[in-house]
Structures are given as structure tokens and as C-alpha cells.
């Protein structure tokens, strides 16, 4: 018996594959050094001062961070994580935060990707576990 697949299904599978590839490639392409600066100078600064302490990348596993970043839930779901990477947010704090000022014009998705690269790389089971300093 010859198994058959509809062309629509074939195209859907194809697009899914491309999408997954793009996501993977995107994460790998992130500039982890820029992500590190933003993580340390914006995320860590704020968490240290207002949110009960800094959260080191090496305090979570790659799986944990991947789930956290995919969920896009900040402060236990009170708002979106991407809000704090957005250009609007950077513009709102750039007067008092040099990292936000330096990266004011970096597209949101690109900067989010950079941060993701740093966090996954710095996870406790990542290639280069990173503390807060």
C-alpha cells in the first residue's frame, strides 16, 4: 500500500519546519554580549533595587529559562516580559539608564533574542554558566 500526503499538509509541514528552524537560528544568532549588558544593567539593576534581589542566569536551567521566555510572563503574569525590552520602555528609562540609552534603537525582537542568548548560555546547564556580576 502506498501512503499518501495531501499537498496542503506537505506545505504546512514545510512551513512548520522552516518556522522552527528560524526560531532556532534566531536564538543562536543573538548577540550574547549585548544581551549580557542589558540583562545586567537593566534587568538586574531593577530587580536588585525593587524586586527582592537579582536573579542570576545560573540559578535556572536552560529548560526553565526557555519556558519562562516563551511564556512571556513577567512578575508572575502581572505583565509581559517583552514590555521591559521594548523600545518604549527603553525610551522611558534612558535618562537614568545607560544601557537603555545605548541600545535605544535596537529592534525589540533582536534585543530580546540577545538577552535570550545570554540567559540560555548562562543557565546552570548552559555552555557558560553566569552569575550576576
Amino acid at each position, binding site marked *: 500500500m502506498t501512503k*499518501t*500526503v495531501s499537498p496542503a499538509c506537505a*506545505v504546512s509541514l514545510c512551513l512548520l519546519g522552516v518556522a522552527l*528552524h528560524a526560531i532556532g537560528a534566531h536564538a543562536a544568532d543573538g548577540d550574547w554580549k549585548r544581551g549580557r*549588558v542589558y540583562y545586567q544593567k537593566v534587568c538586574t539593576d531593577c530587580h536588585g533595587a525593587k524586586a527582592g534581589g537579582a536573579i542570576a542566569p545560573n540559578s535556572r536551567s536552560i529548560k526553565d529559562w526557555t519556558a519562562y521566555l516563551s511564556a512571556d510572563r513577567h512578575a508572575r503574569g502581572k505583565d509581559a516580559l517583552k514590555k521591559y525590552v521594548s523600545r518604549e520602555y527603553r525610551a522611558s528609562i534612558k535618562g537614568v539608564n*545607560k544601557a537603555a*540609552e545605548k541600545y535605544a534603537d535596537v529592534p525589540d525582537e*533582536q534585543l530580546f533574542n540577545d538577552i535570550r542568548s545570554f540567559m540560555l548560555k548562562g543557565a546552570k546547564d548552559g555552555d557558560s554558566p553566569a552569575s550576576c556580576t
Partner: protein
Amino acid sequence: MQMPMHAAFRTIAVMAAMLMAAAAHGAPDAASAQLLKSTSDHSKFKVLQQDFQSGPEVTKACLSCHTEAARQLQLTQHWKWEFLNPDGRRLGKKNVINNFCTSVASNYAYCTTCHIGYGWKDDQFDFTAQENVDCLICHDTTGNYRKPSGFAGNVVTRDTEFPPGSGKVVKALKLRPIAQEVAKTSRDNCGACHFFGGGGDGVKHGDLDSSLASPDKALDVHMDATGNNFACATCHMTEGHQVPGSRYAPTAVDKGGAHLRGKERTGNPTTCQSCHGQAPHKANLAKLNDHTDKVACQTCHIPAYARGGIATKMAWDWSTAGRMGPDGKPLVKTDAKGRVIYTAAKGHFVLAENVVPEYAWFNGKVTYTLLGDRIEKSDQPTRINHFEGSASDGKSTIWPVKVFRGKQAYDPVNQTLAVLHMAGNDDTAFWTNFNWEKAVAAGMASVGAPFSGQVDFVSTESMWPITHMVAPAQSALKCRDCHASDGRLEKVSGIYIPGRGSDHATWLDGIGWALAALALFGALAHGSGRIFVSRRRT
């Protein structure tokens, strides 16, 4: 319409390839922006599109294009770990004994983790083999390249149990993606070794630790990741792989001007003056320019070191090493912050952050106590190294230094410092058997030095120049930090510093105050007289 399964997958494959090609063509800006900084995309080189099984294989691939790189590198101190001091003595990591982990000899496989080469496991290492040069340690940009301790500077490309029989596995490294992402050096590259000198983060230097990988302006105005973002090589301007600015060849006083592009300059490019010149302060602070002939820039502009949240070691007492806990296992103690302050393997440590430097005259000459030099146990510590200089030699300025104090093993009969065999999976290594006599016997034998069989401990001191962690101008020292009775330069001899406690003369102050009082009295008397006379006239 239906199609056979294999035809469907062929369609999928073709479409996927086309779409991926299109996606790659319209790749995100981050990648393309990064590539624009370089004229080469190393991932496109055929020679780098292979699964490398060792470091030397990568080096051979690098050298197939960069044909002279290894020859350049093999002339450097980074490769030789040797330096010929102006006094004729051979220095460099290969030869000196310090008061941290003491010496490279007999501990090669561990210490050479930070050598810029592969395979230096004993004194038979081939310094002429070009494939032994490690290109990736300085040119990796992924941040994933690492050489685990105990492998003689080799990378691990297969999961390996280490130490053998321990059950601990060192994960394999994939060299291909690292080799394809090489670029010019960054702070992370240099820091992979120089931040961790002395066996841990910030241990040795005090002004170099991992906080400088991504510092803010308050920590270092030059390396500020959101500002100037200097790489190490911005100041340590390298030519032909020769990196200037070694502490073995320091420039204590630079009388040259700021380096102009296009103008030849043979001086040390790492000095402050090589950029800032001889009169760096603006007109409203011009008085400070009068200080530059006697005070190094670092003295005022690095008010403290270890400011990045990472403690540096200030003292190390080897004599207490080897203690076991109640469970019979090697003892470990931590302080209130969870930092290790005692281990059976190393003894006691003193750690500190935000440390105010000590200050000393320095003319660029450093003298060392080397293996074989006669030393005596006394109230005065043995100087492992010492900065030369004085107020009167005309060549010195006042420098900030970290003075590292220790107590380390020596041979009390031959009166020499000891070479210690610390690390290794053998019966004589101290970290295996905690026996000093065996460890020193093995260490001294490895360099052919005599050993009496007795081990004692002697107090030692070493000096380290403070040159990094330059603070913003507003955080620099103020006049009162030195010109006061409790000022920072209280112990610096040979110079008159107005206001300093040791330059205080009670009789002179008395005369001064008397004259001031007299002047005040005169002015008041004169004024009163005027008032009196004017009233009489009216």
C-alpha cells in the same frame, strides 16, 4: 489530489530549502551588522567546516591562511612564559615563585591551563611546534571555549572522566562552531586567564576580575560596557601578537606626550600619558597638573580596588593547610558571605573588597627573590618581589599597590623558597596526600634543586601594581585624602606633603597662628582707630 509519500517529502525538502535560503538571505540585522565589522566570515572557509578532534587541528586550519601567526606568537611572553629582567635574571611564570600557588614547575598540567598553547604537561614541551599554539583562547567570540584544569592546556573533545575514577565528567567541546566564529580579542578572552590569576576570580591582582567583563562606568571609565567599552587591546595595543604592558616590564614614569595617530611612538602605549599627555587636567583644575611629576595618575584615579563585587585575596597562610574535619574529610570554612576562607588544600585566606591601596615610590625596577636565593626567617617578611624607587632618584612616582602577604613553605636548612608539587594524581602531590615533605621533595627534584628534607614556613610579601578599575573623575581622590594628618600618603617617605601628619611642625604652626592673630589684631586696632578718629571730628 494525492501524491506518494516519498514525493511529498521531496516537495517538503525542496520548499524548505528554498524558504530557508530566503530566510537566511533576509537574516536579522544582528548577524549582518556583526559581520560588517569584519571582512571575513570564517564559517564560509572550507578548512573550518570540519569536525575538529583536537586544538592543534584547529590551529593547523588557522595557519593555512594566517601563515605567520604562530611564528609571531612563539616570540611572545604569552608563549614562552619567560622574561629576561634588565638585571639579567630570568623571570616569567616559568621561573618565578610567588606566594599564591607558588610555582608552575611540577604542576604543569594544571598551571598550563592558562598557557596560550596545547599540551605543556612537563618540561619536555615542544615550544617550536606551530600547531601547539592555541588561537582560540584569544580569538573565540562564542564565550564557550574552555580548557579544563589538569589537561595541560588541551581542550576536551570527548566526554572524559576526570580525575580518573572520580565519577566527574568533563563535557566535550565542539570546536567547529567556535572556530567559525573567531574575531579580534575582547575583554572576555583576556579575562579568561587574567581575571582568574592566582587560582580564582580576582584572587591575584585585585584590579582584574570578572566584573570587568561587563563593567559600568563607576567601576572603570574606559571599559564601561555602556560607554567607552574599551577592549584590553585598546590600551595594550598589540602588534605582531606582541602585547605591551606586561608587569614584568612596567613603565613607572612616562614623560612622553599623547600619542598622535600617524606619528611614530616607541613608548609603552598602555600608560595613561600615552593618551592623556602630561597635563591632563583642565584649567580650573590646573593645580593638579603640578602633581603629575611625583604622583602616578592611578594613585588619585583608582581610589580603591576590588570594587566590582568580587573579593580579592589579601593574605594566604599555607602553614595551616592539611586539616581534616570531624568527618575525616578535608576541611572547608566559609565566612558570613559564603566565601571560602579555609581549605585543607590551601590553608587560610583573607579576602577583601573595596580595598584602599598601599602606596610606594616606584621607578619601574622590580627585584625578585627566586629559587636558590638565600632567605632568612625573621620578623621581616621575605620580599617575593619588590618595587624599587625613592623620592630622590628622579625616576620615581608614587604608585598604588596591592601588597599580598603570605606564609609559605621553605627549606630551613638550605634557606631557600620551596617549589611545591601541589596538583596531580600521584602520591607526592600535596592536594592528594597533604604531606609537605613529599610535596616539596617532588617539587624541588623537578627543578633539580637541593632539598634538606625539612619544611618550615616563612612570611612573604609580594607587590602588584594597581592600574585597572579607573574611577570617574568625580570619584577620584580629593586634596584632603592626602593633605591631612590621617591622609593616604602618610607612610610615603622622602617628600614634603603640606598638611600631612608626619610633615606637621607644631612650632611652625604656632608661629603661623601667632602671625595670623597679630594680623587680625592689627586690622581690628586700625579699624577701631579710624572709627574713633572719625567720631571725634564729627
